[in-house]
């Protein structure tokens, strides 16, 4: 089976969908001729023409606003925001418009659209190229929020997102674009070409939004993670020898609560991971869900390992990033109770 990097898998998903469906249009800053600063749209303008893959002015509110209009017309826009950190000028269009159009027009108008954005840290990008704003989207009724951790899922989830009739925020953890970064920044990264999840079938396939994947089966503790943190969790489990069951959520809204419930009822313990800041992060929602659904099966308090509640620093990147040592400490701590 062909292996692809996550960038190639995303590009392939766009290619497959643009070939299948003339309604799919792709645009964003530097997305056209240049092919995007992360190369996710390389070659698409040449193949499908400038009317279907083009550069946008530097206006995130414009990019997302025109996507709403195109979606309402009947197209399937896939907009790229160059970094999730640049999303804020377009936030009103996401929250007040895209997310509510179906509801407020009683289904007369809808905004089927995907907003792709690279997120997360680990690249010395400082506070403007490292953020993980997923909770700002999961809190909004009417949006779906997806975050793959590997090329195989990225392609299948992106195709599902494009085919979805509701607006989907598609977060791409940029630190795993080229390989499964596990938080050991001083070690070379294994390229996706040598990782089983680099395998991405050619052609069309989709992964339904709202289905988690078990990355590692285990009996001692359930780890809920998504994006880059899935790989950090795997490293931490291996290094501590803790028999953790690692669940890659893949989609935060809709959330696969059955998978979570099944695992926590089995292990009785739960550690939740995310790169984003802690207070009001998506981990708080997960923790509440686990408590509400599995309270009588829990043998220890639920723990969260997250980014600190500060803006993302530059020089202190590895003090900030919740790496395998911190995750490993939490895995051991939750077993002590």
């Amino acid at each position, binding site marked *: 089976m062909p292996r692809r990097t996550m960038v190639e898998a995303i590009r392939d998903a766009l290619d497959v969908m643009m070939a299948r469906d003339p309604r799919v249009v792709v645009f964003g800053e530097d997305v056209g*001729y240049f092919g995007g600063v992360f190369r996710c749209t390389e070659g698409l303008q040449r193949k499908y023409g400038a009317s279907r893959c*083009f550069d946008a002015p530097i206006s*995130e509110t414009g990019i997302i606003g025109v996507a709403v209009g195109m979606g309402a017309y009947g197209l399937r826009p896939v907009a790229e925001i160059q970094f999730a950190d640049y999303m804020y000028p377009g936030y009103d269009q996401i929250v007040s418009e895209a997310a509510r159009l179906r509801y407020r027009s009683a289904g007369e108008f809808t905004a089927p659209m995907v907003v792709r954005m690279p997120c997360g840290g680990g690249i010395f*990008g400082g506070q*403007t190229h490292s953020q993980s704003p997923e909770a700002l989207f999961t809190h909004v009724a009417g949006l779906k929020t997806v975050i793959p951790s590997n090329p195989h899922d990225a392609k299948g989830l992106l195709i599902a997102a494009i085919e979805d009739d509701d607006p989907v925020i598609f977060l791409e953890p940029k630190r795993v674009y080229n390989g499964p970064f596990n938080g050991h920044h001083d070690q070379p990264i294994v390229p996706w070409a040598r990782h089983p999840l680099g395998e991405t079938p050619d052609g069309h396939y989709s992964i339904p939004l709202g289905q988690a994947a078990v990355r590692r089966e285990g009996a001692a503790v359930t780890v809920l993670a998504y994006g880059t943190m899935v790989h950090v969790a795997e490293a931490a489990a291996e290094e501590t020898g803790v028999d953790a069951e690692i669940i890659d959520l893949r989609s935060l809204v809709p959330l696969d609560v059955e998978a979570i419930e099944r695992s926590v009822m089995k292990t009785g313990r739960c550690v939740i991971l995310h790169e984003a800041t802690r207070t009001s992060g998506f981990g708080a929602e997960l923790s509440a869900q686990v408590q509400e659904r599995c309270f009588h099966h829990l043998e220890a308090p639920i723990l969260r390992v997250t980014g*600190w509640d500060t803006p993302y620093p*530059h*020089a202190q990147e590895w003090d900030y990033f919740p790496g395998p040592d911190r995750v490993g400490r939490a895995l051991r701590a939750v077993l002590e109770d």
Partner: protein
Amino acid sequence: MAERIPLSLHVPEPAVRPGGRPDFQYLSIPRAGAVRRPPVDVPAHEIHDLAYSIIRVLNREGEAVGPWDPGLGVEAMKAGLRAMLKTRAFDARMMMAQRQGKTSFYMPSTGEEAVACGFQTALEKGDMNFPTYRQQGLLIAQDWPLVDMMCQVFSNERDRLMGRQLPVLYSAKEAGFFSVSGNLTTQFVQAVGWAMASAISGDTRIAAAWVGEGSTAESDFHAALVFASVYRPPVILNVVNNQWAISAFQGIAGGESATFAARAHGYGIPSLRVDGNDFLAVHAASSWAAERARRNLGATLIEWVTYRAGAHSTSDDPSRYRPKEESDAWPLGDPIERLKNHLIALGAWSEERQTQLRAEIEDEVLAAAREAEGYGTLHDGPKPSSAAMFEGVYKEMPRHLREQRQEAGV
């Protein structure tokens, strides 16, 4: 019923791409000295033509001509030459430092040094720039210590921003240099607010807003113009049109349909379009706008026509989207060469002195770099404290952050 044609989308494309011959025919360049210089209290609607021309002072022969010739003294011009050379040498050294792994990232201003270095000559102590990431010349033109700037770039123990901020996103209040956010255009409107505050307070200080032509697409640009139009605060609204926003040529920002200077017309704000590679024109236009601001006549928008000769940043490779030779073909030339040639034409300078000055400056920059590296580089040597990461989020550190700092063990 009338027959309807199928509609089609217009997507702007630059005249040439890699492999093609550079073509700047889209840019109509008047001869130096051709544009009139109106009084500073001219109503906006009487100078609409100035937004569609280009104010130029230095001609091909190196002479300063026309009504915008500021009559700058030789020493002031030498200082400008020195500032531009220093900015270029600083950029070259920091680009090299990034390639050597001493920092993560850098953004040069190569080719557009006259804009920041020339503009700073119109400001006074107490005025405030709200720069983008490509106005390092504002600091260097004030002889702000290079070591201080380099320590920020290296995120070392002497970094005044404590390692928190991405390289080149300086902050230097004392130098009238507002903290650079890194997000685009957000600060353009803040400059208007700062200027409004000066007016509210009965102060005499003025503000300068900065944005690139690509970022004029952001809504904050338009918000800034409407507030500047309504309240007439003492602010200069600078649009640096260096033709390229990463890979997007100026047409993607709307430059095909109107000039960026003309954006001001809908708001009734006087605007100028100026040769940004002509140090004397930059000084003259900046001084004109500053005088308007200081005389309480309100805002001025200036489009600086220049060219981003370098990469957008160390993460960028311009040869992927524009001809390599485009920079050499830029019709407004190189700002350093042009001012040098003028000084030589005046008999006040020579190629030998230029070579000597460049060597002196390169030595100065190298010495500064060595000193700054002694205080650490991003991955080597003394670093800012890890605890600094938790400080300054709030004035007083709240309990939850104290707990997190403890948990981090720093």
